[in-house]
């Protein structure tokens, strides 16, 4: 039931007629992937620049993981063109893989090896790896260096997954729901890790269900719904958020009132004059990323 008029921003995201960008970290045109009768990815176009953190948002089943895993070379595609660091993932060899770091949703598996042993083994597959002990320090697992992988807690294991993903010194890092199962403090620590990796020049493609995470980390976010990219924007402007009407709420005569306006300052001034000074229970709010996101996927779902 999705009519083109209901998607005013879609034209910006449709770029099948634009050629692949050879300099982009990831460039995708008209990507299609079907599973039996259902179409998981249905003509998706996307460009991710080198050096940026790009967050891919979307409900379960929207095609996020399929798209990411096609880029990683794990899944085949039915149609479309994909270049990851200039190479078609379907034909990427060892040298190409050495440029990637992959943190899978499913993690890196159980192991009897210790964290340090796992990182040393992983490092030995790459041409120019990071020092395993430095990586352990970076993800905050130094104290667990001698502990076996399978005895770690959920959050520690996820940090180990990230450590395994970055030990090869990737140019491009894929992070598929990296902070699921983290407590709030661990997530903050993880965010600062991601920012320091960006400062080192790593491009990142992040998929997440946490909108605050996308807002905190991403240079740009893309919302994927029904196998297509609905919109790409900087977090503050997604869904016309930057220019959306502001909701002003207050209490007057014991009744909660609210009004949408493009000129909140004027409205608050008028209220202050009318109510004589302090406006009771005043709030001024722009739509949150979550508001616009839910509206966007609601339109399409």
């Amino acid at each position, binding site marked *: 039931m999705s009519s083109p008029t209901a998607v005013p921003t879609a034209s910006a995201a449709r770029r099948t007629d634009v050629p692949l960008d050879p300099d982009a970290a990831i460039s995708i045109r008209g990507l299609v992937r079907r*599973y039996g009768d259902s179409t998981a990815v249905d003509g998706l176009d996307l460009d991710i620049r080198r050096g940026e953190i790009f967050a891919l948002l979307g409900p379960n089943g929207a095609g996020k993981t399929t798209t990411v*895993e096609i880029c*990683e*070379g*794990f*899944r*085949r595609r039915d149609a479309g063109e994909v270049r990851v660091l200039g190479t078609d993932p379907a034909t990427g060899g*060892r*040298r190409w*893989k*050495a440029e*990637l770091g*992959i943190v*899978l949703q*499913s*993690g*890196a*598996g*159980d*192991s*009897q*090896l210790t964290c340090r*042993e796992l990182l040393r*083994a*992983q490092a*030995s*597959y*790459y*041409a*120019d790896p990071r020092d395993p002990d430095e990586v352990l320090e970076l993800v905050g697992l130094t104290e667990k260096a001698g502990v*076996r992988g399978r005895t770690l807690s959920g959050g520690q294991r996820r940090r180990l997954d990230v450590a*395994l993903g970055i030990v*090869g*010194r990737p*140019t491009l890092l894929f992070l598929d729901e990296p902070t699921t199962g983290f407590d709030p403090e661990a997530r903050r620590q993880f965010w600062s890790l991601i920012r320091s990796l960006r400062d080192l020049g790593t491009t990142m493609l992040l998929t997440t269900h946490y909108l605050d995470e996308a807002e905190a980390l991403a240079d740009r976010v893309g919302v994927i719904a029904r196998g297509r990219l609905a919109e790409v924007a900087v977090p503050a402007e997604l869904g016309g958020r930057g220019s959306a009407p502001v909701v002003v709420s207050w209490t007057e005569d014991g009744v909660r009132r609210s009004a949408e306006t493009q000129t909140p300052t004027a409205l608050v001034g008028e209220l202050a004059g009318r109510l004589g000074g302090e406006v009771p229970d005043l709030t001024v709010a722009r739509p949150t990323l979550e508001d616009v996101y839910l509206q966007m996927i609601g339109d399409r779902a």
Partner: protein
Amino acid sequence: MTATRERTLPSVVEVCRTRAGVELKEFFRQRESVVFTLMFPVILLLVFGAVLDYDLGHGVKFTQYFMAGVIAAGILGASLQNMAISIAAERSDGTLKSLAGTPMPRSAFFVGKIVQVLVVTLALIAILLVIGVLFYDVDLPSGTGWLTFAWVTTLGSAACTLLGVAVSSLCRNGRSASATVTPVALFLQFISGVFFLFSDVPAWLQTVAALFPLKWMAQGLRSVFLPDVLAAEEPAGSWELGRVALVLGLWCVVGLALCVRTFRWQDRGTD
């Protein structure tokens, strides 16, 4: 900046060495696999050796016969059962997929597994022979016997390793692999002349056993541990070493073909 960092990828040999180390640690640190694969045949030898030490005639005790069988069964466990269960587990928990996303040469993964099977098998054979000699007076092979011993065990474990890798693709996870493979292995042990004399097994079950590698490994090893007069007790009246080589070689070919066709680095339905 990237130009100064340009270095060549590690050689396949180096990565193979890493993988061999990883596989050995994974095996020997996991209590289940050590008990199941290494200790189980040892316990069988100790128990059966103590209970069933009757005379087979010609001054040969059953323990001498059982030595061939328990080594064959041990090889089946160290190769087929071990590979089927461990690879199914690694596929379902994401280990294989994760490795496939690295620049590790895929051949190095299989080299690591082969080294694991080789080391475990050699350790197992050594332990079984030492126990056999120390506790049950088992006569060790002599001269060309060792040569036969070497090729039967090598060909047998190659066939069973390949089959184990192939079977792993049929199972959803390690637990289901264990539940599928263990009863089949036990059944084959009962009908292939491991616990009982093969000549006591009903003819139709002998035919079933002859389809699988275990019977031929046990028979080939009996030719090493038993005096030639007992060859008359075999179904063909001889050790049939040519046929042993043929059947085990065929299973290698079939196993390899199945591996190439069925091996997956991730769970079904996610390619």
